[in-house]
C-alpha cells in the first residue's frame, strides 16, 4: 500500500475535495460547450412542420431524390476503401513485423504523409496529374470514382497501419507463423486462416475509423465532382432550411455508432486479454 496518507492527511483530503470540485466544474462547462450545438441541431431537426415538433425534416430528407443515391454511393466507396486498404495494409504490417523490419521506418514515414499533405492540396495534385493526357484517368465519372477510392485508400493507411500494427504487437506473430508452418501451411493459409482471425478487433477498429472518415468526406469528392454524401450535405446546407439539421444528426449518429463499436469491442478484447493473462 502507499504512504501518501501519512503526512498531513487533512491537507491531502482538502486538496482532494478541491480537485473533485474543479473537475466537476470543468466537465460541466465543457459538456455545455459540446452538447448545446447538438441539442440545438436536434431541436431544429424536429421543427420541420410549422408549430408542431415531429420528424418531418427527417422524412423530407429521406424522401429527397438525391439523398439515397449519394448516401449509398458513399457507403459503397467506404466499403471498397476498407477492403482494398485491409488487403494492402495487413500483408505490409505483417511483412514489416516479421520479414523486413528494416522497412519499418520507411513505412512509418509514408503513413505520416496524409497528415503532411492537406486534403485540398492532395486533390489539387491528383487533378493536375490525372486529369490531363497522358494519364487521363478522370475522363468519366466512374473512372474518377475509382481514383477517388484509391486516394481514400492511401489516406486510410495511417489509421489502418496503426490499428493492424498494434494488433500484431498484441499477438505473438512469430510463434503463430512458425506453428502454422510446421503444420505445413503456406503463406496464404497463414495470412487468411491464422493472422486475419487473430487480428479481428484491430481490423474492425481500423475499418470503422476509415468508414467514419470516408462516409462524409467533402474536400476530395467535391473537387473531383463526385456525387457523394459530403458534397450532397454541403449543397443541402445552401438550399434547404430544416433538412440540414436532420442530416447533421444522422451524420453524428453514424460517427457515434462507428466509434461506439470500436470502444465496445476494444474493451471486450482487452478484458479478454487480461483474463487470459491471469491464467
Amino acid at each position: 500500500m502507499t504512504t501518501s496518507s501519512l503526512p498531513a492527511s487533512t491537507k491531502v483530503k482538502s486538496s482532494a475535495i478541491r480537485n473533485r470540485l474543479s473537475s466537476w466544474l470543468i466537465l460541466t462547462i465543457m459538456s455545455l460547450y459540446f452538447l448545446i450545438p447538438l441539442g440545438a441541431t436536434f431541436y431544429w431537426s424536429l421543427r420541420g412542420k410549422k408549430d408542431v415538433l415531429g420528424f418531418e425534416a427527417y422524412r423530407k430528407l429521406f424522401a429527397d431524390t438525391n439523398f439515397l443515391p449519394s448516401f449509398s454511393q458513399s457507403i459503397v466507396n467506404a466499403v471498397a476503401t476498407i477492403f482494398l486498404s485491409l488487403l494492402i495494409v495487413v500483408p505490409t504490417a505483417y511483412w514489416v513485423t516479421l520479414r523486413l523490419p528494416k522497412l519499418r521506418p520507411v513505412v512509418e514515414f509514408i503513413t505520416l504523409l496524409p497528415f503532411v499533405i492537406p486534403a485540398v492540396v492532395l486533390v489539387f495534385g491528383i487533378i493536375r496529374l490525372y486529369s490531363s493526357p497522358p494519364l487521363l484517368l478522370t475522363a468519366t465519372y466512374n473512372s474518377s470514382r475509382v481514383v477517388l477510392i484509391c486516394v481514400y485508400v492511401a489516406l486510410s493507411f495511417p489509421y489502418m497501419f496503426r490499428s493492424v500494427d498494434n494488433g500484431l504487437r498484441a499477438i505473438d506473430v512469430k510463434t503463430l507463423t512458425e506453428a502454422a508452418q510446421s503444420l505445413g501451411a503456406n503463406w496464404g493459409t497463414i495470412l487468411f486462416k491464422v493472422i486475419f482471425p487473430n487480428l479481428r478487433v484491430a481490423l474492425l477498429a481500423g475499418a470503422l475509423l476509415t468508414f467514419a472518415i470516408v462516409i462524409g468526406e467533402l474536400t476530395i469528392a467535391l473537387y473531383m465532382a463526385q456525387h457523394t454524401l459530403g458534397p450532397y450535405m454541403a449543397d443541402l446546407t445552401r438550399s434547404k432550411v430544416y433538412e440540414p439539421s436532420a442530416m447533421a444528426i444522422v451524420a453524428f449518429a453514424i460517427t457515434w455508432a462507428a466509434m461506439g463499436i470500436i470502444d465496445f469491442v476494444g474493451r471486450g478484447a482487452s478484458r479478454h486479454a487480461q483474463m487470459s493473462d491471469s491464467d
Partner: protein
Amino acid sequence: MRPPRIPIGHWLGVLPFFVFSGLFLIAPTLVLAYRSLEGSEGGLTLANYSQLASDTVLSSYGMSIKISLTTAVLGGLIGFFIAWAVAMGGLPPRFRLITSTFSGVAANFAGVPLASAYVFTLGRVGIITALFKLLGVDLYRSGFSLYSFFGLTLVYLYFQIPLMVLTILPALDGLKREWREAAENLGATSFQYWRHVALPVLTPSILGTMILLFGNAFGAHATAYALTGGLFDLATLLIGRQISGDVLHNPGLGYAVAMGMVFIMAFSILIYSFLQRRSERWLR
C-alpha cells in the same frame, strides 16, 4: 530457428503499399512541387515562391496561422484540463469512459455536419442567437459573427479539444504513482509536484500535441468551406478557389501556395515527432 521459406514474394507483400502511396500520395505532391518551380516561359525558377509575399496570399496564410495557433493553444489547454479532470480529478471512472468515447466521436465530427450544427446554434437564426435576442442582446449587431475569426475558432475547438483529450490521456496515465509519493514524502506540496515533476515530464507531450493540433487546423478545409461557402480568407480555401478557377490569375503561384502549406505541415510534423520521441523517455 529455421527462417521460413519465402517465395519470390519477398517484396510482393509490401509492393502494393508502396505502389498506392506512390501513385496517390507522393506523385501528386511531386507534380505540384515541379509545377511550382516552373516559370511562365518554361525553365526552373523560384519566381513563384517570391510571389508568395503578395497581399492575397499573405492575408490567407496569416488568417490560417492565426486560427491554427489560437485553436491549438486554447484547445491544448482546455483538453489538458479535461483529461486531468477525468484521469486524476477523483471523479467516478465512468466519466473517463464517456469522455474518451465522446472525444473519439467529436474529433471525427468535423466537416459539413459540424458547420451545420453551429449554424443552427450561433448562426443568424441559431437557437443561442435567438435566446440572446430574448434577453435583449443582438449578437450580430454587437459585433459577433459565426463567419469570422472568432466564430471559426469556436467551431474548430469542437474537434481540437477532443483530439487533445485523446492524445494526452495516455500521457497522463504514464505519470508514475511513485513519483507523486516520493515528492509527497519529501514534503512537496501539490503545486511543487506539478511544477517540478509532472509538468516537466509532460511538457514534450503537451507541446507536441499542440503542434499536432496546429497542423490539424491548418490543413482543415471542409468545415470552413461548409460554413462560409469557401469564401473565407484561409489558405486551404484559397487553394480550393484556385482549383475551381485560377483566382490568383497565376497558375504557378497557386502551386507555390499549395507547396507552402506542405512545407509548413512537414515542419510541424517534424517537431511533433521529435517531441514525441523525447516524451517517450519518461512516459512508457
